[in-house]
């Protein structure tokens, strides 16, 4: 699709009537912090950044973009690992960090209404005095915002039992790409008519911007039982997961880290994990005390039979947090082992985890690059971390190729190219390998029905012709012209 050129001057002039100078950034030095998100391999220079402080300002910004046909992207804390909040070159970034108010907390009805810039972890903090919490827990939760979590249907370590963001958003007020305002969902767990909200959550910012979000809160579990088991091989840890599943237990979380990830976590936060482990398994039970105590005995039998050479139980809340701290820090910790790395996110059927890990090891050798593995084993969600040195010629390209091979492997094994990070910028071309042309065309028709000019987060998620956008391989014309760059 070809898009008409933008009349910059008149757009910026009208923008200045909505946003005062301190909340309207258009100078190079002001824009540079917004040029990339957590997928730092990509950079793009937006035309301007605005920082709305109310839903009304978001609506006016979107309507102005629609009038001038300026592409826009909403951005929270910029923690997207798929490049989902990367600016559209020459487009508007609508930064939502200042919209960080808790609009309503109703402990009796167990709902919270927040603005999109509200930080994930702060929902649980606000709910804690009432014995409640917000379940989705992406590793980025101390920083990432609810608006971003909603757009990318963020997951976390506890998805198997209680689902992803989509399962915890009850309603949203949304400005559609052409400026109409709609309310999707409500305050009930149920609805009638098509689940429009279900479609909107996880639509990667392509269908509009949510400016008010209603979340469901859960009672805090009475008891946690967190087990850390160390194994001499990854296969043993994988088999332990299968044995837990076969036992009929339903843990809140089952996580595996391999030796490279363990090494990184130790270096970063001194988690005190068992020495010499080739794989660590974390299993967490949660619920009512008598039930958890009974399940813990059953789990102990399963783990004992699984060949773990060391098993630790968290004896206190502090010990539990320490176990999780190492796990949640693993991504950033890998930065200590390598100057650069790509965090990949793929899903395979749980029973094929062993095969997937074996193939990843083989690919790692073939490409001559180290791969650390951290994964949500309970739901088959792999997070291979591909380590490389961007200063060595060709190494970034090799790392990207390896990461792509891992995604193809996930598709081949019957899984998905993303469990929780979204497609964004990074995986656009793989979406067409996971879905057929008719599938993508149906999704495109939905997108164009809501956004005929493809303004809202243009260039993301769909493969190919949605440009102008970056290309993963080789220099883009805009890159050669110095408009965009990647590190």
């Amino acid at each position, binding site marked *: 699709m070809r898009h008409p050129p933008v009349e910059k001057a008149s757009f910026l002039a009208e923008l200045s009537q909505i946003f005062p100078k301190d909340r309207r950034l258009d100078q190079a030095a002001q824009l540079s912090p917004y040029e990339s998100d957590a997928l730092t391999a990509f950079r793009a220079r937006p035309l301007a950044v605005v920082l709305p402080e109310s839903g009304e300002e978001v609506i006016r910004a979107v309507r102005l973009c629609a009038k001038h046909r300026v592409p826009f992207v909403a951005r929270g804390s910029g923690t997207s690992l798929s490049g989902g909040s990367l600016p559209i070159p020459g487009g508007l970034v609508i930064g939502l960090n200042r919209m960080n108010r808790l609009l309503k907390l109703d402990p009796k009805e167990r709902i919270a209404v927040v603005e999109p810039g509200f930080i994930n972890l702060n929902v649980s903090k606000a709910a804690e005095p009432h014995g409640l919490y917000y379940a989705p827990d992406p590793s980025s939760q101390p920083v990432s915002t609810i608006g971003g979590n909603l757009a990318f249907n963020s997951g976390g370590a506890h998805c198997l039992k209680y689902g992803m963001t989509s*399962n915890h958003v009850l309603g949203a007020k949304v400005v559609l790409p052409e400026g109409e305002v709609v309310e999707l969902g*409500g305050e009930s767990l149920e*609805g*009638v008519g*098509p*689940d429009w909200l279900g479609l909107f959550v996880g639509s990667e910012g392509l269908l509009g911007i949510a400016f008010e979000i209603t979340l469901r809160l859960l*009672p805090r*579990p009475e008891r946690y039982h967190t087990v850390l088991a160390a194994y001499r091989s990854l296969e043993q840890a994988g088999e332990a997961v299968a044995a837990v599943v076969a036992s009929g237990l339903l843990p809140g979380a089952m996580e595996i880290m391999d030796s490279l990830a363990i090494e990184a976590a130790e270096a970063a936060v001194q988690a005190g994990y068992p020495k010499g482990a080739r794989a660590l398994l974390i299993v967490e039970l949660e619920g009512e005390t008598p039930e958890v105590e009974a399940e813990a005995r059953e789990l102990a039998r399963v783990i004992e039979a699984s060949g773990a050479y060391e098993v630790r139980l968290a004896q206190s809340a502090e010990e539990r947090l320490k176990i999780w701290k190492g796990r949640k820090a693993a991504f950033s910790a890998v930065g200590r082992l390598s100057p650069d790395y790509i965090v990949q996110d793929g899903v395979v059927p749980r029973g094929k985890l062993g095969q997937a890990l074996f193939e990843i090891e083989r690919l790692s050798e073939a490409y001559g690059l180290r791969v650390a593995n951290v994964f949500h084993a309970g739901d088959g969600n792999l997070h291979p971390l591909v380590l490389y040195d961007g200063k060595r010629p060709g190494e970034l390209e090799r790392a990207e190729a390896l990461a792509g091979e891992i995604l193809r492997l996930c598709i081949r094994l019957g899984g998905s190219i993303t469990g929780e990070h979204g497609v964004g910028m990074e995986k656009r071309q793989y979406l067409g390998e996971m879905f*057929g042309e008719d*599938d993508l065309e149906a999704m495109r028709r939905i997108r164009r029905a809501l956004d005929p000019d493809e303004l809202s987060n243009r260039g993301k998620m769909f493969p190919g012709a949605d440009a102008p956008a970056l290309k993963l391989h080789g220099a883009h014309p805009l890159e050669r012209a110095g408009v965009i760059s990647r590190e």
Partner: protein
Amino acid sequence: MSEVATTLRPASPAEVQEAVRTYAKLLPRGGGTKTALSTPQGQTVLDLSGLSGVLEYDPGEYVFVAQAGTRLAEIQAMLAQHGQYLPFDPPLAEAGATLGGTVAAGLSGPMRQRYGGVRDFILGVRLVDGEGRLVRGGGKVVKNAAGFDLPKLMVGSLGRLGVLVEVAFKVFPFPRATATLKVEFGSLEGALEALYRLSGSPLEFYALDLEPNPRATLTLRIGGLPEALPARLARLRQFLGHPPEECLEGQAEREYWAWVNRLDWGGGYLLKVPVQPSKIAALEARLGPGMRRYLAAGNLLYLNWSDPLAKLDALLKSLGLPGLVLRGSLESPLIGVDWSQAFGARVRAALDPLGRFSP
């Protein structure tokens, strides 16, 4: 209806595509258990009972894939052999309801209290859109964020966005032991107060139902390992302050819940009303006697209604609630507040531009 509607019974997704391309107005039908949704008003009926059967099931994955016309009862029997179940606990299984019909009507039952409703367990779909294309969305792994979430979109879609031909679901292990406590309260206020206290507590329920008539009653189902159940029942009784109650276990308990999910409350209209606990008192003040049951801690009402539907429509509107007629009417099944808006109209136009699936 005086005229006899044409009924087609496709045996493959390709035949569904062919039918969609051939007929101007179509009404997909599964088991026909929700007559208000499956009785034609001049449309050609697309009977999907020929698209039946499980395509994939690996208990270790907690996932199965089946054709949309497969009966719930068949799925439940298959899962039970491996100690698993449909956690959203769909109603009307015994009457012959199908997977596709359950998704299209968006129906969940009492046990949705524990882990969520049909929207929370659907993983993937294949559907035929209004132009006869076969479209796949979602996947068949328990976690997936690739592409638009078409599976969720189809929940509650009433066949108006496309014809479901295949669905994939996440399932869970069924608790090894369960028990049910029926507790009567002197007043609706007392029952609601207890409902709030229970649903905000760390106590976990597979079902938390409120029946307002004839006496306000909470029905609580717990489940887990058998050795923990006595201690948990004791804690629950203490939490409630030892009110008079009846405890159901074993066969009696299973039969009780099977009865609930039949929603067999005699004549009149049968409706689904999504609700919140905060609206129950106002609703009850105006509904009068009759069979009804609030599921999932006051989030889902199944209601039997014998008066004219217009009266209920007005009542729901005044409380800002929508409703879906499942049985008893051939008028539009959607009553109460209007759920249509710009977002929905545009999505519908994208998937069914010719209006083949609109009534």
